[in-house]
């Protein structure tokens, strides 16, 4: 699914140049669950952004199904994200003025499908995460765990091939965290998604098929990675 070759991302801050990701080579197979572990500020989220086309590498290539994301024009990149990539954020990132159903529906708007079809798919997505009875609730009326479930439904409603999750349980209590990870795991298996999950939690990382570790912008994979 993914092929990263020599990927480097540097940021300019005034006169300084800050390397966030350095010379990353990575291959992620179709349907694989990869956990990227590491301490805060070591480049995990930056790598996830590069995988999702939310940012472009300074050097190297990020290929998704053979397409170099860094070379795509913005409109095509946006279209690719709309169709193929689902995002789950640590802070849920739900739109506060929209209900749970409308937040999930927002992911289908770029696809141009009609309202009847959208309604059916939204209902199915919320049902899949166990929130069919909360469709009309605003985010402020939902618990943290429920909000993250809505975010998961939003990520999956368009049947993506890739789901990128950035600390999906980071803002949740222990019990809810486990519920969310169990839900993600189930959906990953049922839908044969390619799942890349960023976490600083070793227990969560161990549930993945493979663990990679980011340290100071460098990525190491498998048994070679030191525990953070």
């Amino acid at each position, binding site marked *: 699914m993914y092929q990263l070759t020599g990927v480097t991302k540097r940021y300019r801050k005034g006169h300084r140049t800050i390397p966030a990701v350095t010379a990353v080579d990575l291959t992620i197979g179709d349907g694989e669950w990869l956990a990227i572990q590491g301490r805060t500020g070591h480049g995990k989220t930056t790598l996830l952004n590069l995988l999702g086309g939310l940012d472009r590498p300074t050097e190297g290539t990020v290929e998704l199904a053979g397409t170099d994301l860094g070379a795509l024009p913005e409109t095509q990149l946006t279209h690719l994200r709309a169709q193929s990539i689902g995002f789950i954020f640590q802070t849920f990132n739900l*739109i506060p*003025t*929209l209900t749970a159903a409308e937040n999930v529906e927002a992911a289908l708007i*770029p696809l141009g499908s009609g*309202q009847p079809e959208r309604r059916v798919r939204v209902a199915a997505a919320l049902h899949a995460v166990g929130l069919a009875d909360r469709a009309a609730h605003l985010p402020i009326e939902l618990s943290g765990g429920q909000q993250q479930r809505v975010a998961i439904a939003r990520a999956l409603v368009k049947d993506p091939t890739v789901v990128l999750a950035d600390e999906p349980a980071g803002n949740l209590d222990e019990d809810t965290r486990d519920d969310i990870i169990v839900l993600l795991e189930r959906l990953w298996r049922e839908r044969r998604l390619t799942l890349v999950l960023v976490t600083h939690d070793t227990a969560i990382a161990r549930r993945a098929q493979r663990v990679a570790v980011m340290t100071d912008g460098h990525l190491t994979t498998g048994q070679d990675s030191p525990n953070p």
Partner: protein
Amino acid sequence: MFFTTYLGRELRRRMHQAIFVALGLALGVGLVVTVAAASAGVTKAEAGVLAALYGVGTDVTVTGPALPARTPAAPGNGTSIQAGPAGYEICRDGRCESAAGHSVQLLDPQYSPAPSADVAAVARLREVSAAAGGLLLSDTAVTFPPSSGQAGGAAPPSAGFFSVDGADTGHLALGPFSAARIISGHSFTAADAGADVAVVDSGYAASHGLTAGSAITIGTVRFTIIGIVAQPQSGGSPPDVYIPLAAAQELQLADGSAGTGNVNMIYVTAASAAGIPTVSKELSKLLPHTTVTTAATLASQVTGSVAGAAELASDLGRWLAVLVLIAAVAVACLLTMAAVTRRAAEFGTLKALGWRTCRIIAQVLGESVATGIAGAAAGVGLGFAGAAIITTLAPTLSATVPGPSAAFAQAAGQVAPPAPGSTAPHLVAVPLHPSITAGVIVLAVILAVAGGLLAGAFGSWRIARLRPAGALSRVA
């Protein structure tokens, strides 16, 4: 559906800000509407003053030089009043007699005569769509008491005065008669072209007990009154009596002559408003010894508070409205940009979901336009309220309008004190009625929506520059 749902929810979330921006736009728009209405009202008031002076459909007037002080007629000609050692004498065609106990009616033109052929020449000019001649006369009746001329200080003679307009019955849309409204009897018809019939101004009729069907003597001729007319309230000094031009031209003047074939006013309608200066120039070339007056030059002679109000509305009022509107739009722009900054993470999320930048911009623009429309509606309401306040509270304006010719004034004043209204320019009350036209309402809506769009454009510029990763990091 999703678009409007999202839009409505966002406006509700930022209700206070939306109301604040809408009110700001409403204030600016309301001021624009009020000032435009007041300006239109003042223009209408001024136009009413001018219309009463020279008629509604007249763009340009041509007059000969004002006549010099009437010298006593040459012996044997006409009627005159002379002062002798035994008192005043009335001389008619060379024969004089004591004026004591007698009345005399003197008919004089207000301006120098010109041949009717000049009217035809004017009508043939390029850019002239119509021309008509008029003959403005003044009828002065002087009455001498029986004791006039006796030793011991006799009572002075008394004078009555009224103005007469010989109107072209084939061109009643030109000249002072065009602004008149029949309130009793009927107006002139084509058959009245040379008849001894008259239409009298309502003010003069009321003060002299005249009605349709009664009679009035002009010079020495008796005219039947066929109608009573009212001139606009804001009028200057409209004629007291209107008679057909041909009848006026047959009247014997005080100097023994008649105005046969003559006019002393030419009223001209230009083919277009833009052509008025050209017409004015061509008339000056065609008739070099005349005075060519347009509404603009006449307006400059009208002074008083109506002129001051016109300046106030067009200068201070307009600039104040523009400044307030600019300030309102500036505040709307700043608030929209601030809101976009606060919602950066939200927009970053939408971009991550695959929303195109133009789609997000359309959402923000929609919110701004909706606020602009609300501001427009409130602004129009404020404008109507402002116009109503002006109508209720504004004092009646006044206009000082030019009076009749000095020559006439001197003629009337030779033997008696000047007749009322016959000498100096005089003051007329001009009520102010602000008027809001559909065009002003449309302008107000456009201004407010444009203000909203401009504010949305500033916000959109920020959105277009947002990088998804950078926007999302603001949450983290």
